[in-house]
């Protein structure tokens, strides 16, 4: 049985001792400054006997939302890691048993924690994540509204200025 090396060279399924990271890892730093690096060298192509195309699509969508624990910058669909393959087959098996997507996700969360979900569940720990942007938007919108009101009131008081501006420019660009 050949286990090969599941993702980028030195990062195998081994939990390497933290102090002894091989020098080869430094080479991978190159990927850090390049914008697009989330990739293993070889890809996971894994033909499975799906019932129909709809199930295949469902499988692809689901495994794309799950994170590989070995090559942690890859999803289950794309990862070539051995464990990713096992988990893909597990997901496939659960699908054949008629489990829903949510049940399958829960199955993996029970074993590997929320870390496997690329789509973090909404709960108090993730409120900041999910509602933070809305908060930014509200604060920004309040600021923008205040600015527009202030400036438009100014425009009304000195309406000459606005008219002059548009007329005098001719080509309003």
């Amino acid at each position, binding site marked *: 049985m050949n286990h090969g090396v599941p993702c980028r060279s030195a990062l195998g399924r081994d939990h390497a001792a933290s102090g002894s990271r091989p020098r080869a890892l430094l080479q991978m730093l190159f990927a850090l400054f390049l*914008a697009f690096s989330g990739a293993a*060298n070889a890809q996971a192509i894994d033909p499975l006997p799906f019932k129909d195309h709809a199930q295949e699509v469902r499988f692809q969508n689901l495994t794309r939302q799950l994170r590989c624990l070995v090559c942690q910058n890859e999803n289950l669909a794309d990862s070539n890691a051995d464990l990713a393959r096992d988990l893909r087959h597990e997901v496939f098996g659960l699908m054949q048993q008629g489990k829903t997507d949510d049940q399958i996700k829960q199955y993996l969360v029970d074993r590997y924690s929320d870390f496997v979900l690329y789509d973090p569940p909404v709960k108090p720990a993730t409120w900041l994540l999910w509602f933070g942007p809305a908060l*930014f938007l509200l604060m920004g919108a309040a600021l923008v509204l205040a600015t527009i009101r202030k400036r438009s009131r100014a425009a009304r008081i000195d309406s000459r200025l606005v008219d002059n501006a548009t007329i005098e420019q001719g080509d309003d660009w």
Partner: protein
Amino acid sequence: MTPELGQLALILAMLLALAQGVLPLIGAWRGNRALMAVARPAAAGQAVFVALAFGLLVWAFLTFDFSVQYVADNSNLALPWYYRIAAVWGAHEGSMLLWVMILNVWTVALAAFSRQLPEEFLARVLGVLGIVAVGFLAFIVFTSNPFARLLPMPPDGGDLNPVLQDPGMTFHPPVLYMGYVGFSVAFAFSIAALLGGALEQGWVRWARPWTNAAWGFLTCGIVAGSWWAYAELGWGGWWFWDPVENASFMPWLVGVALIHAQAVTEKRGSLRAWTILLSIFAFSLSLLGTFLVRSGVLTSVHAFASDPRRGLYILAFLAIVIGGSLLLYALRAPKVAGGKAFAPLSRETVIVIANLMFTVAAAMVLLGTLFPLIGDALHLGKISVGPPYFGFLFPLLMLPVVLLLPFGPFLRWGKSEAAPLKSVLLRVTIAAVACAIVAAFFVDGQAKAIAGVAAAVWCGVGTLLYVYKRWREMPRGRRYPAEMAGMLLAHFGVGVFLVGVLLSESLSVTRDVRMAPGDTQTVGAYTFRFDGVHATRGPNWHAEQGTVTVLRDGKTIDVMHPQKRTYPRGQVQTESAIDPGVTRDLYVALGEPMDPNKLEGAWALRLYAKPFVRWIWAGGLFMMLGGFVAGADKRFRARRAAAKVAAEPVLPAKESRA
């Protein structure tokens, strides 16, 4: 000896950068012309020495000087010469050198093309750039020396990561850096403006072409990277919301906001403080993007080895540069709202709204990227934030922008009438709805695809309507000034991009199949026939190469050759085969043999049909072109105009006191 020369050159460059960073600023402060005059020669000298160091590193790679650690790590005797040159920026140390060299390119260009700028202002701008260069050069010299020796010299080196051995990848980092670093110019302008006093407003006009060009480069770099990911990684994906991608995307988003805010400030005098702040943000996010991924902070996602010493240096540098500029902003930013007033229905208003959306989008990306770290800090547990999060929130935030896009050009500065807008609304709505209905028949009722067509037509037709309006109303020669043409190209690009994204995402078909020679599989209207695998080799790899014949209606349309390459150090790299097309790409990747001992037997293959996927990059290229064309407007270069604006600073608006 040459590596030591390189190191010496870097040290000299650092000293010159120090001179460039300190003396002109003192000169501008004390009004000492001699000190200000140091800026140009120091910048030129620094550029010469950095270029020398860079050249020496290239030379070390070309001559296989494995006594240099960096060369030994990233190249070997079998690596072709062009990839040996690309290997210069193939890892951390050399890429930092490239960064500094590009900073020098921008600085020298600025020094050469900005002779019309007031002396003090230029001294400050070059001084700020000098300080940035000092930070980078010191980082290289003290923590990331590319010339460090490896003794005894090994007979052969390691390898450049095979992922990098691709033409797209050699080209992607320099262009991306041109974008990142280009924002340093807008940054330096705004810092110089803050230092010089809030009333100095001419700077925005001078900064605009530089910002546009930098943004164009950044767009190009992102497009190149995305294209490479698609063509090279073998997943057929083009964007993964990976932290490293996000790092390049945040400055891009803020860059979009900045370009528009600069237009408002330059033409109307409004949003002055905001434009300054955005200039600081854009460059800060570029620094963050370059740095954070190397500092060990984002390793929580990437599992890369990192040196905490580098991390601390980076953090200190960021704190000084960004913290310093934000402190300066807090102290010196213009306090009163200046410029001409505007009504709620005006071009200013939509630009402000778009600015808000782009800034919030950038903040969202930042939050999502850093949230796993926040989770560690607050003990919320290990959390992954990935494509489902970004892919859900980003389109929501961009929806208002897409909806407003057709109206932007039609709106007038200051105050607009509603009537012309209503007619635009009517026309784009009719066009979008009509096309959506037609599309619905072709795409099998897929809501996302229909929305894609509608959104693209909305943007595209809106832009074309304005093109038509100018054509009808303006005399020849005055119809499309470069600045406007750039805007129209970029806005049109948004439409093209939307077609690519929404159609390819909703209509793509992916299949992982097992195929024995002679087997056929059908994906959409295409039949793929697998004709077996044979061995082949390249300059420094050997590969198994599949032959896949694609047929449509019984006629052969292409013979594709996906490869699985093995490089000298045993790294395996998939090379997908792509049959490109305007309306669809066909894409084949070779997996593993089903039986490892029977290469002539069945193999696992991945087959894709991706409709309109190319439009994604085409849209990006339109946007890039827009940035360059707008930046090339003669108006920005006219010496008279610049001098005039400098001479009469925009009045602090009386009306704001009301």
